[in-house]
């Protein structure tokens, strides 16, 4: 059973639809007890960083998120990936979940359109269980205006958009995808399938 954390963000059902397609049972919830019983957790997200953190705090989800991230496979998608980091400079300065060292900042490249929207190809940087069986240069769907800045040891894959943009990050059993695997066709479903296969407690 995969728990999809409901903190009021959109695209919850997209993630659930994709898991259904893979035959993986899931529950969209903000109930701590239910999340405790889940084998793995997905933190989805679209929208603004500050609003998302405020919603997580006001729904008292911080303790269960931090606990889950230690105990079981945990995946942040898009804004959910950005929330894993310590700080964001989106509309001011906001504290994140601080599960992985690094911060989030505005993408600004001359001559390139922002948001980075559409299908971009993955360049592999360091091995990741999420990329098991995935071909390098496979296309996945991005839509974001901010990017993660972190030590390269946490970056498993990047996408080229003016410069390498972190696309998959991880630390122990915590994973993040800047793209939307639930909207990335067969490649995205395959990446979600690999996430479901991961057993907890990777060190």
């Amino acid at each position, binding site marked *: 059973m995969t728990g999809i954390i409901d903190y009021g963000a*959109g695209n919850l059902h997209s993630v659930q639809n994709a898991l259904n397609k893979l035959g993986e049972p899931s529950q969209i919830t903000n109930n701590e007890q239910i999340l405790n019983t889940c084998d793995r957790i997905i933190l989805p997200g*679209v929208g603004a960083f500050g609003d998302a953190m405020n919603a997580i705090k006001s729904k008292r989800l911080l303790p269960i998120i931090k606990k889950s991230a230690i105990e079981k496979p945990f995946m942040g998608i898009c804004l959910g990936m950005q929330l894993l980091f310590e700080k964001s400079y989106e509309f001011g300065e906001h504290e994140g979940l601080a599960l992985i060292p690094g911060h989030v900042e505005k993408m600004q490249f001359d001559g390139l359109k922002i*948001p980075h*929207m*559409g299908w971009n190809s993955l360049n592999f940087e360091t091995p990741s269980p999420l990329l098991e069986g995935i071909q390098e240069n496979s*296309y996945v769907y991005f839509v974001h205006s901010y990017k993660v800045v972190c030590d390269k040891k946490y970056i498993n894959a990047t996408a080229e958009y003016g410069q390498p943009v972190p696309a998959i990050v991880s630390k122990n059993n915590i994973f993040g995808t800047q793209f939307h695997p639930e*909207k990335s066709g067969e490649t995205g479903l395959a990446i979600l399938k690999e996430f479901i296969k991961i057993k907890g407690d990777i060190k």
Partner: protein
Amino acid sequence: MLAKRIIPCLDIDGGRVVKGINFINLTDMGDPVEIAKEYNRQNADEIVFLDITATHEKRRTVYDIIERTAKEIFIPLTVGGGIRTTDDFRDVLLAGADKVSINSSAVNDKTLISRAADKFGSQCVVVAIDVKRVNGEFHVVINGGRKDTGLDAINWAKEAEQLGAGEILLTSMDADGTKNGFDIEITSAISTKINIPVIASGGCGCLEHFAQVFEETEASAALAASLFHKGELTVAQVKNYLKSKNISVR
């Protein structure tokens, strides 16, 4: 590298696809979900549903279609037509759409763009602009091309961006239906003046037109309807052709 997107657009009325669909091997030629699945098989990058249902009662049918589509295909889905309030946005997004396209309602109430962007994020706010040449100027037309607003299309695109639009769906009413190619002039004028992606629409008649719009403008995506529906070209054929022209596609 970021790929140029190829987007088929389906007009839906009362839950059924209108405009001739000419595929073989579809169990139900009028079912938008079946057709969306076919385009997904052809490697379409996104799907656009344009709901042209006139009566409010029948409008619910489109939510069912969005829901069923979102369970079957896992690529971005844009829904437009009759969206007037942020509640409409919410309904469509909750049903499973990823982006919502607004046209006349954005012109009639500009704050709809900013209110929707604040609530749901710019990434899901697509402002559709229909453009027509009037006395040498590019005017925004609304109500399905029937009403000339007198607004300058380039200024309106810039304003939509400032208000929080995440993308512009630009249709040239002059080119639409001609099959003489995308309107390079207006597509270029707008795509070079704003920093959000532009989807070019209207006028496409053959493979070369897709290459032309990507080579001669800053368009991020190209949209076509009848060309695909009538089976004159498949999305896969378009992509293979663009690849041969060294244009990046998925």
